[in-house]
């Protein structure tokens, strides 16, 4: 695979397409500087002086960031220049706040978070370097689905940790397989929907106002989604359950354009949530908390975690108390993971929080952009799925800790303490780097002589990917979608009309 799609050097384009790698380098360094400044700021606020290890910390993060940048520069030079800097920024800010909370709780989680960051970046580099063509993943769609289910099932046989069976604990290390499973599921959904979108969209029976697809088309994906959700449900990991569902519906909609399913899905999930919320004690208590976050105070039992979180956000106000000068540690348990956003809210204020959410928004938008630019349905759905995953998780967590929706016990991507989450999100960004590279890569040099006749299968002088394409799974579906996708409103050189011919060698 790697050999046949050897990228950049091969078709050296005469037209200079900007790679924006220098922009990325600048932004990465800026992100590292912001994090180092934040680290120093925490020390100044708490001890009145810059922490002694600021330089070591900044250099550590900087080296990781530069290595990641080098990998991108070497193997994905057309990748979106914002993805890596934003990831570095979020990871760095997370480290700053974890260090800040370390100071308040007399613990030392920041060093291990730095180690996890290093592992995450190494995996990022690995994906960027070795996954030269993300479409390889498509081939192993069912393997990914199987892995996702297995990963999620394992903890069910292990003792529950903190009320939820979502952890694998090995010695001092704990690992949340659901986090990794979400990427595997995204890959599966993308691959399946890319292959079957026409069948799903165009065939089926109309029942009342809803057009349902044929069972054999919807079946496998529904089964796998139901299976994963069921497992998560049994493990009481409703947050992951929710974002899996959200991702499933969004990808289904993007792939098929059928709005009706979203409505049906929302009704179904609404019913399910209502039933679970009413009858399942663990979830019910979260619903009660959500509706009455201050109830425990009125009952004379002091402020609960949600109330403490709201107090923290409120204390931040518009401008925040300043890094290191808040009291979010009053939230107590999980203040560095589930509740880490409250520290941002308190110490950086609404202004800082808005900036942070906008960083996520830009990351999501960039993921979507890569997806929309890509002509390959799998890549497109994968980018969109991963970006949606990020958006949904940010929403579910932030809305939970600010009392907009019931709490789910998930963690803020990149920010929160926790190895599996951090590593997973670095892999997620690595995949987006790969898809964005493919999306932004310039088209093959325009063929100098106009083609004599519209060739059905134009033979090109160098056509290495052709044989590979022949044994690729979604070949059929791509052919079948051709008539429809040709009507896409885009008229650029990468128009859908050229998809068949250009998309293949492009990657």
């Amino acid at each position, binding site marked *: 695979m790697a050999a046949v799609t050897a990228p950049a050097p091969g078709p050296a384009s005469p037209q200079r397409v900007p790679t924006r790698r220098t922009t990325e380098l600048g932004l990465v360094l800026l992100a590292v500087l912001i994090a180092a400044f934040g680290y120093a700021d925490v020390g100044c606020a708490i001890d009145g002086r810059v922490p002694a290890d600021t330089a070591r910390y900044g250099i550590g993060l900087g080296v990781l960031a530069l290595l990641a940048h080098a990998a991108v520069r070497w193997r994905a030079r057309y990748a979106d220049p914002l993805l890596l800097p934003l990831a570095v920024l979020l990871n760095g800010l997370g480290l700053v706040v974890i260090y800040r909370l370390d100071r308040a709780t007399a613990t030392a989680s920041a060093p291990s978070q730095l180690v996890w960051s290093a592992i995450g970046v190494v995996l990022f580099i690995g994906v960027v370097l070795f996954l030269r063509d993300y479409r390889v993943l498509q081939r192993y769609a069912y393997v990914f689905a199987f892995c996702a289910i297995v990963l999620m099932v394992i903890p069910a046989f292990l003792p529950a940790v903190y009320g939820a069976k979502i952890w694998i604990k090995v010695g001092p290390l704990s690992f949340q397989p659901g986090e990794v499973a979400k990427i595997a599921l995204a890959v599966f959904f993308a691959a399946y929907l890319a292959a079957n979108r026409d069948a799903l*969209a*165009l*065939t089926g029976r109309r029942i009342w106002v809803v*057009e349902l697809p044929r069972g054999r088309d919807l079946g496998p994906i529904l089964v796998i989604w139901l299976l994963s959700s069921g497992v998560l449900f049994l493990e009481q990991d409703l947050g992951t359950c929710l974002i899996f569902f959200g991702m499933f519906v969004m990808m289904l*909609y*993007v792939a*098929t*354009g*059928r*709005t*009706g399913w979203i409505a049906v899905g929302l009704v179904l999930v609404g019913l399910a949530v209502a039933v679970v919320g009413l009858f399942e004690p663990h979830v019910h208590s979260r619903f009660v908390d959500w509706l009455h976050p*201050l109830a425990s*105070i009125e009952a004379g039992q*002091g402020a609960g975690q949600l*109330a403490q979180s*709201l*107090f923290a*956000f*409120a*204390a*931040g*106000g*518009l*401008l925040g*108390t*300043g890094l290191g*000068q808040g*009291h979010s540690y*009053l939230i107590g348990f999980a203040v560095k993971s589930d509740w880490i956003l409250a520290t941002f*809210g308190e110490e950086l*204020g*609404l202004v800082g*929080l808005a900036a942070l*959410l*906008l960083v*996520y*928004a830009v990351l*999501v*938008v960039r993921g*979507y952009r890569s*997806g*929309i630019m890509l002509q390959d349905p799998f890549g*497109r759905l994968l980018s969109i799925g991963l*970006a*949606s995953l990020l*958006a*949904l998780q*940010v*929403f579910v967590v*932030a*809305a939970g800790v*600010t*009392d*907009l929706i019931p709490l789910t016990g998930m963690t803020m991507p990149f920010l929160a303490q926790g190895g599996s989450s951090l590593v997973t999100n670095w892999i997620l960004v690595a995949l987006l780097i790969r898809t964005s590279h493919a999306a932004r890569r310039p088209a093959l040099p325009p063929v100098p002589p106009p083609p004599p006749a519209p060739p059905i299968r134009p033979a090109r002088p160098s056509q290495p990917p052709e044989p590979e394409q022949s044994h690729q799974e979604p070949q059929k579906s791509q052919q079948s979608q051709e*008539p*429809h996708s*040709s*009507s*896409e*409103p885009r008229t650029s050189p990468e128009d859908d009309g050229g998809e068949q011919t250009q998309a293949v060698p492009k990657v």
Partner: protein
Amino acid sequence: MSPFGRGSRRESRDASVAGAVRLSLSRTARRAGLFCLLLILLLLINCSRVQVVRSKGYDDNPANQRATLARYAQPRGDILVGGRAVTGSRATGGTFDYVRTYTAGPLYAPVTGFSSQTYGNTLLEGVEDGVLSGTDSRLAGFALLNAITRDPVPGGKVLTTINAKAQQAAFAGLGGKRGAVAAIEPATGRILALASTPSFDPGSIAGTGSATVAAWSALNARATQPMLNRALRQTYPPGSTFKIVTASAALTDGVVDGIDTPTDSPDPYTPSDTTTPITNESAADACQNATLRYAMQVSCNTVFAKLGDDVGEAGMVRMAQAFGFNQSAQTIPVGVVPSVFDTSMTGQAFLALSSIGQYNTAATPLQMAEVGAAVADNGTLMQPQLVASVTRSDGRQVQGFTPRTFGQPISPTVAAELQQMMVNVVTNGTGTNAAIPGAVVGGKTGTAQNGVNNSGTPYAWFVAYAKPSPTAASPVAVAVVIEDSNATRADVSGGGLAAPVARAVMQAVLNG
């Protein structure tokens, strides 16, 4: 199928094959992306709601510890007596960064009150809390700049009017006895001493934790109520010291012609609506038709009871209130409980008893010191004040002291007559224990009956003022009450127990 008909016309040509209108991938992707952005917009709106719209409610929630944490994040400003701090702050290294300390806790507890992380703030620590904790808006230089820099404003200082020597004399004079002292500078209303015994160390309950809780419950369990501020917050029947007020009313209303004119009063005196006679403590005293001067000297109940009845309820109430009785909300700025002269008595007997400081008549030591001060200040009563000035931590004043007149209960003529009578009490009468060589001292003793049928131990009172010379202004008026008098004879006990304490306080002021 598609609800977005307008945009999807283009595709209908191809899609018609399957009988459904299908949106293109990029179009649905854009919509899904917009949905994701909508989610984040929702988050921003909700964060604005929590952080801006509803933040005040969350900030003020009693379960929110932040206000308390902020309050103790910096040293508290000090309360000063005579330019010297009687309070302090100590770094704890615990949850709360600083805790209050007191240099002479029991001595100044009736002035400072306490500032406790567990039990709140009282007295000056309470009413001046905004200044001491640095939250008072007068302390901030530029409010807007401070809001941006968030530099904490250091706590300001509260300078009291207390005279350290007078306070020490009062505290030492009371000793182990239960009682209180209030001393005032008559010309200005400055409070020079506020003592209450037994006292307590506010520092013992300043912090948090089990030791604080234990100290608190021990203090509350004691029958002697060490945390009760007897000078400001406890009223006692003023007994014979109230005769100053009655004499003022009689002289002002012209019920008697002068202090040396014999009064028309029997001994014993039986008010018209009762058969129970009012008698004098000592049958040996010649109280029948006695002059006012003599009646004051030996403290004739019969004379003053009869005078009260002669003045009438309206006149007595008017005079008592002119001296400060029945004030609903007296603040110095610490709140003082109102002293009472009954305004709805039915009949002569009760009025007669009220006029000799019994029945429902009740006064704080501060109130009786005000009576003494009005006499000493030639009839003008100044508002008593405890705070001399309030400054920022760097000493810049934000609030000064201006003497304020409360009223003119008696004319200078009447005041002069009263001074003569009170000096006579100290020179020739029941108050000889208050005499200070070289100074002019006027006083009035009192022993108030206590409890039903005089069952409780009586309260020994002494109200006095002192002048360095007959023509000088008086620098000090004082009231002393001692609860656990063992004596049974009326005026002698007031003179015996309370007068020496008053003398010590006055001497401390006179000697500077």
